[in-house]
């Protein structure tokens, strides 16, 4: 779906080229925080109930590195085809703000855990590859609420989030359109979920997308002034905010103004960006090596062990679905982009001997996803039952229309497919003996239709099929009935 701002940006993109870099923070799926043993299970927890002297930044405390968080970043590095240096270390990013109690954030500056990667994804204009400069590990900050307290303005701090492990992934400025930016973020989210590094839900801040956006006249080499865009809380917002920003900058330049280096926030209600603050220069963070943490060596054995834990990646899976199973790239995308659809398809394939992958894929991309994304979402489909259902349809035991009803009922009640088919009386009569009698009866009872058919009115067969279906209370296999009727009508001239 194209959006109004994205539509507008297309106008600007006729004269200007956008240069976009994306920074994504993902909360890693660890049980404990980055540098202390506090639980990361902070969703809905009382403020400051998940803290300790380390994540409160109390003097005299020392951080210790969570091995699991390091391994997730290394795994993510593999997934984006990045290089892991033999030695990495930690740096302090210094700034004063109440959400960072130590006065610095432990991050990685000079030697990130992953460097020089790339990610390829599909767009409406074909595949695009974006270079990824780095992926590094750092600690999250506390959460601030600004509010009025007893007639004065105050900031309230909850340090539950302080010290949660975060991976920051930074692209080169290779992205050229708002759509590419959204698709990059979607593909990265899928990648993180596939390897299990992060749940990457944007709505609850597990994944935060920021964009650096500038524009330049088409054909010009030098970059324009870049603006950082934040607060994009959905994939749709990513595309709209960047589209808006491209258009805003184009209007400024067209009007003889200059783009100001600043940080802007996306405002969902007004569908526009607003000024948050002027952008401080990076060097003001005064990075220096973290003296409290020893360097980290990544041995080939350790890296190899982590590599064995990485499942099939989305790009490889899509290629397998289209290549090996002959699925369309559209269907392969639909299957791979939804984790529950992938699991159902793979599960049904594993048990569904004799049912073609294409048939199973149709059930998953069609009926299953329609149910899962519909109003009655929240149910589930057992892969074994889906394979059984597809088998029944393929054998002609039940009709396709009835099968859809069976799936819907199974989705809602989890009842086995076989018992739903029995209970609803959906089993088709495909037995040629039983059908033969019903067909004989229909031919004998309707000599006019038989005569019509033989006189060249092919449509008369439809009437006869209807009679057979009626006599069998809809349980005859309609396709079989039609074939058998034609044979009888043509043979016994």
């Amino acid at each position, binding site marked *: 779906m194209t959006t109004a701002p994205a539509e507008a940006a297309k106008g600007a993109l006729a004269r200007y080229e956008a240069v976009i870099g994306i920074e994504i923070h993902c909360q890693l799926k660890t049980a404990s925080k980055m540098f202390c043993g506090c*639980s990361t299970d902070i969703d809905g927890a009382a403020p400051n*109930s998940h803290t300790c002297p380390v994540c409160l930044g109390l003097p005299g405390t020392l951080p210790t590195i969570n*091995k699991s968080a390091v391994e997730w970043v290394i795994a993510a590095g593999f997934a984006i085809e990045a290089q892991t240096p033999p*030695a990495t270390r930690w740096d302090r990013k210094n700034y004063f*703000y109440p959400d960072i109690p130590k006065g610095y954030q432990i991050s990685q500056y000079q030697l990130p855990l992953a460097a020089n990667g790339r990610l390829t994804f599909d767009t409406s204009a074909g595949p695009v590859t974006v270079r990824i400069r780095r992926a590094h590990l750092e600690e999250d900050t506390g959460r*601030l609420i600004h509010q009025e*307290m007893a007639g004065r*303005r105050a900031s309230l701090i909850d*340090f539950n989030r302080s010290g949660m492990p975060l991976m920051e992934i930074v692209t080169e400025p290779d992205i050229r359109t708002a759509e590419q930016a959204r698709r990059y973020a979607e593909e990265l989210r899928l990648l993180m979920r596939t390897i299990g590094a992060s749940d990457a839900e944007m709505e609850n801040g597990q994944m935060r997308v920021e964009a650096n956006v500038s524009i330049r006249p088409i054909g010009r080499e030098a970059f324009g002034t870049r603006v950082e865009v934040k607060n994009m809380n959905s994939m749709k917002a990513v595309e709209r905010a960047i589209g808006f920003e491209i258009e805003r900058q184009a209007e400024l330049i067209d009007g003889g103004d200059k783009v100001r280096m600043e940080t802007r926030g996306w405002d969902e209600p007004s569908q526009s960006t607003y000024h948050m603050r002027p952008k401080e220069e990076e060097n003001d963070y005064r990075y220096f090596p973290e003296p409290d943490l020893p360097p980290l060596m990544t041995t080939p054995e350790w890296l190899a062990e982590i590599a064995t834990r990485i499942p099939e990646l989305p790009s490889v899976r899509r290629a397998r679905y289209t290549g090996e199973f002959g699925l369309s790239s559209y269907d392969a995308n639909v299957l791979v982009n939804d984790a529950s659809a992938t699991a159902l398809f793979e599960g049904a394939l594993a048990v569904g001997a004799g049912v073609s992958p294409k048939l199973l894929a149709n059930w998953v991309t069609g009926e299953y996803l329609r149910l899962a994304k519909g109003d009655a979402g929240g149910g589930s489909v057992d892969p074994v039952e889906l394979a059984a259902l597809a088998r029944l349809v393929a054998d002609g035991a039940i009709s396709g229309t009835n099968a859809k009803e069976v799936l819907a009922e199974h989705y809602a009640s989890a009842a086995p497919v076989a018992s739903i088919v029995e209970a609803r009386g959906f089993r088709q009569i495909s037995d040629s003996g039983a059908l033969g009698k019903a067909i004989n009866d229909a031919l004998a009872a309707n000599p006019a239709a038989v005569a019509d058919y033989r006189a060249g009115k092919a449509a008369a067969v439809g009437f006869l099929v209807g009679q057979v279906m009626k006599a069998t209370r809809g349980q005859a296999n309609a396709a079989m009935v039609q074939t058998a009727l034609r044979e009888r009508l043509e043979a016994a001239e």
Partner: protein
Amino acid sequence: MVHSGLASVRYHRGMANLTRADVEHVAFLARLGLTEAEMARLEGQLNHILEQYAILQTLDTEHIPPTAQTIELANILREDVVQPSISVDEALSNAPERSASGHFVVPAILGGEGGA
């Protein structure tokens, strides 16, 4: 290469040439409210420190690997195991002020960094 907070400061162009504006900027970053007299004194002291780095810079360190660590440790990792946190009351025991909801309360901060 020697890394120190000062040596990596952006506005330090050339050794022993820290201007008054540089001192003001560093003071701002460190959120230090300095008097004119303190500013003047620190300008001299900081330049003196930088002069000593300038002397160190003349040494041939071509064959010495960069050092950010003087203790011979590497790969000190901990397993991803949850340990008990402290209580909310304990966490807030040093707070200048606390809210009924259990937050630390500080004077309103607008702008600045915020977020990771």
